[in-house]
């Protein structure tokens, strides 16, 4: 069975520094994979390559039979990949509902004429977009629903902004959602909630999820598989236990001091 997303020898070169260095990676449909690694390991760069933010220098990214490299971000979203950002990036001066409705943008096709004359087809599409958006928001219960629908995104609390960002990604009707540190800046209770949310997203909504995460409790709780990166390379892969005990991973997190001492000794 082909993988849902697969990267082959993917390379990104930032002026001599290989942020992503010939990375082979894959994720299958229905999987939750965590991407871990110290800061600067190239995780976010990898996301940016998949979503078309940066052009890749070499390699391949295959998604659902399409080669993604060279496509614009909006085309990649249309194919079914959505993402959230490490630093929350909402459309601040739009309402919560509108934020998610923008996510539905790529599933609609009406243009200026439709908007001005509003034929039945336009109305039906608009109603559908609205309904879908409300559905995504309903996933978060009352936190983003009800009277909040018409509030500006910038009026939300930090945790709710993260939730809204996830709702917006869900709104694109993607197959694969890339989450960049969804628990960053959250308190322990909210982090726990996010972890259970990620599981629910797969189990109830059928999304495949690739998540960058630093909180090992979350990683342990949600992942089917963990991939560890350092210096743009994949250094380990497998179940949480395997990866957590991998010496390369420990080394990456704790630094090379031990190795250097070994070298000094020899």
């Amino acid at each position: 069975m082909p993988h849902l997303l697969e990267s082959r020898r993917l390379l990104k070169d930032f002026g001599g520094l290989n942020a992503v260095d010939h990375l082979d990676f894959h994720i299958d449909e229905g999987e939750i994979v965590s991407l871990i690694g110290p800061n600067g390991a190239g995780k976010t760069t990898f996301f940016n390559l998949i979503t078309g933010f940066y052009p890749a220098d070499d390699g391949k990214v295959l998604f659902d039979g399409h080669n993604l490299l060279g496509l614009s971000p909006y085309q990649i979203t249309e194919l079914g990949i959505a993402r959230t950002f490490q630093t929350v990036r909402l459309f601040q001066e739009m309402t919560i509902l509108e934020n998610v409705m923008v996510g539905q943008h790529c599933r609609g096709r009406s243009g200026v004429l439709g908007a001005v004359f509003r034929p039945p087809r336009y109305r039906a599409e608009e109603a559908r977009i609205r309904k879908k958006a409300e559905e995504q928001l309903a996933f978060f219960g009352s936190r983003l629903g009800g009277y909040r629908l018409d509030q500006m995104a910038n009026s939300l609390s930090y945790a709710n902004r993260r939730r809204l960002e996830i709702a917006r990604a869900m709104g694109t009707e993607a197959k694969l959602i890339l989450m960049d540190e969804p628990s960053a800046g959250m308190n322990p209770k909210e982090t726990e909630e996010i972890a259970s949310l990620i599981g629910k997203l797969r189990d109830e909504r059928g999304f495949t999820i690739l998540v960058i995460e630093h909180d090992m409790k979350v990683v342990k709780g949600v992942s089917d598989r963990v991939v560890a990166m350092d210096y743009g390379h994949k250094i380990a892969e497998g179940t949480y236990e395997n990866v957590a005990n991998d010496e390369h991973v420990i080394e990456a997190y704790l630094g090379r001091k031990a190795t250097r001492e070994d070298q000094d000794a020899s």
Partner: protein
Amino acid sequence: MLRNALERFSWVAFLLWCLRIGVIALVVWGASATLLSGRYSASNWISLIVAGLAQGSVYALIALGYSLVYGILLMINFAHGEVFMAGCFTAYFAARALESSGYLAKHPLLTIGALLIVSMAVSTIVAVLLERLAYRPLRNAPRLVPLITAIGASFVLQYTFRGLYGSGFSAYPTFDILRGRWMVAGASIQIVQVVVFISALLLMAVLYWFVERTKTGKSMRAVSEDKEIAALMGIDVNRVILVTFAIGGLLAGAAGVLRGLYQPQGISAFMGFIPGLKAFTAAVLGGIGNIPGAMLGGIFLGVFESIGPNLVLEGLGIPGANQLRDAIAIVMLVFVLIFRPQGILGEKLSEEKA
């Protein structure tokens, strides 16, 4: 495979390539047509180039103001053209007073010095006031807010000076010592143009020394790298920004007097708009935020503007080519921003700065 290729085909990129080739072809065609027709001799070209150098050095001085401010605040001080106008226009009155008292005829060099002091002082005051009143309160606003403020301030300054000094056009007095011409290689060159060019170069050298060597200059560079870190290092960021505006003002004031020397006519409250736009072009051309870039960009723009209409446009058979001189700079700005937004000397700007 074909479908993939089609998905990757970008109309925008394609059109931009066509545009690029088209522009280069037009320039080459126009230039070769003119040169082959032999309408102008080598001495004509030399005169034009020297005139362009003088004009360009004035652009460069103004452009430095844009570039310095941009380097530090990442904002376009749209009203900088008016800073230039303020100094130039005010110094005109000093020049007239000194002329009518006969001082100008007796001590022309001292007069020029006095004019420089007046002009630079006024421009500096205007620049500093702008920063304090219009820009500082908006330091953390979204990017377009200070730009809109700057546009508003530009109009306020234009019409304030029109109200203060009147709406007519005035002319600087002429200086006899700058009047003559030199013959170089068969081409006649106006002395005043050479003087202007050299003075501008001197000023730029002083500026370069200031930014590279002095403590204030170093803190300016530190602030332009990262405001927060610079503040943590004990640099008074607000003071550095004020100094930056002041330096921009000083240079613009000097540019005002130099402009009055080689092109005495057309002094009015609206004289700053077009030079401002062109100096901005020059700053972008050289790579905005880059000091040598602004100098180079200004001089390049001046020379190209001087020879461009005759060299390219006439060759293309466009009548009244000199009427389009002002349009050349703008067209150049557009092409630079499309094809090489980082300018001649600029390195690729990081995500945040770009």
